[in-house]
């Protein structure tokens, strides 16, 4: 009876191992996806706490994810996705710089008309 039990357990363990051996890429994929979504959510929450607008809080993590996908695909020899995420991300960085310069220019232009303390 004892031998039978042991044999049954060995068969069960072998079966599970076989399933895991064959399905590990799917499990890994699911794990990465869950991790990506979790990090997206945490990054968006932290940005919101810092005072960014909702649109920025949603857009920046999504664009970073897209850049990550692009890098992954580029590693596999398919770089077509890389510009899709990185261009908007770069635009956002450049836009903030342009806005800063415009603000300074506007201030310098109107400084004579501004109210003195």
């Amino acid at each position, binding site marked *: 009876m004892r031998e039978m039990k042991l044999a049954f357990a060995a068969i069960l363990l072998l079966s599970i191992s076989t399933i895991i051996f064959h399905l590990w890429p799917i499990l890994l994929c699911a794990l990465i996806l869950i*991790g*990506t979504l979790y990090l997206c959510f945490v990054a968006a929450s932290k940005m919101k706490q*810092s005072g960014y607008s909702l649109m920025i809080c949603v857009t920046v993590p999504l664009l970073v994810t897209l850049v990550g996908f692009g890098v*992954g695909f580029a590693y596999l020899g398919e770089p077509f996705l890389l510009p899709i995420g990185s261009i908007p991300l770069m635009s956002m960085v450049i836009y903030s710089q342009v806005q800063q310069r415009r603000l300074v220019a506007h201030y310098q232009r109107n400084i004579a008309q*501004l*109210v003195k303390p």
Partner: protein
Amino acid sequence: MDVNSFSNQHYKAQAILKKGGNGQPKTFLTISETSESKLIVKQVPFPLFELSPEIQRRLATFLSLEDAGIIPVLGTYKQGQEIYLVREYLDARSLVVNRIFHPEEVRNIAMALLEVLSAIQYQVPSIVHGNIKPENIFFQPNSSQGSQIILTDFALTPASKWSSSLNSPELTRLGFVPLEQVAGSPTPASDNYAIGAVLLSLLSGTASHQLYTLTSEENAYQYPVQEILLRQNFPISSYFMDWLGTMLAPDEDDRFPDARTALYALQRIQVIARPRVQLTPSGIYLQAEQFGEQLQACIEIRNFMLGTVLQGQWRVTPYLNDSGNWIRFDTDRVFGNEATILLSVDTEQLLVDKQYVRELVFQSNSERPIVAVSLVVKTGSLKLLARPLPVLHLTGLLVVSGFLPIALSIILW
């Protein structure tokens, strides 16, 4: 009653004081040929068949009236189709004065009028004046009491219904006559309405013939008392406004029933009352983090004085060449005893990294007519606000998401 009791006397007309016409009485200043005293003779067109016992009783009551606040009718006589009422000439000025009266003056006039009416209403038989308007109320200098209010020209037929087309003399009464009197059933409360209208005309400086223009559009017998009085600059208490509102209630049942009740109510109230205002906070400090930021703050206004209505206006005290147009209030006028004002500061019009100190002034009808609130604004720098990015999480996200295509490629193999 002998309506011809004065018919044997002769009066020499000196001047026509009121033209009359259209069924309205004509008034003469006359000199009695027997006593050579000045008298007023009022000629009332009155067909004989209308001289009802009720009117005769009213004429008899006129002769019996005795009060310091009225000019007694000395006598009456009938001639042709007209009845003549003879009374003393009064060398005094009427309330028809082209100025706005102070609420305390108005209160004194109201008390004097109500006292006279109380005496008349409580005598037997009682009588309704029916013709109270500023033209029929006189001031007479009195050495002991300063001046005395005298009521004249009792209506001979206060109960007669009004014609649909109003003529000029009736127009001067319009606004002083309540609905029940127009309908032909005057009561002592009708005189209260007329007194209320007189007081309103004095407080607002409105001439008698224009008083009806103050009535509301919905109801020609209703006055928006509070609205009218708040337009004046006097700090009139809401108790007095309510009292006047009751005097002028369009519905007779909502009015004081007689002069004595109205007088009793008036004696207990304060006419002038100033609000007591408190502003929170008394000073405001605002700090901008970057250039162009819009800053906001709230100021709470409260009036602690019961029976008063706070009215005021905000303004910014000009400072050197600065008119202060970068400081705005969501509403600069305040009306009510509790309000919250939203103050907005536009730092786009200010220099960066500076401190601005300005004075906000609340000008109101309160005990302290001017209350100042200091405003200090510290402007921000030209740099855009540096908000921290969750760099660690974003890097992690970049790395983790980079593995997803690799994992997918393994599945697809």
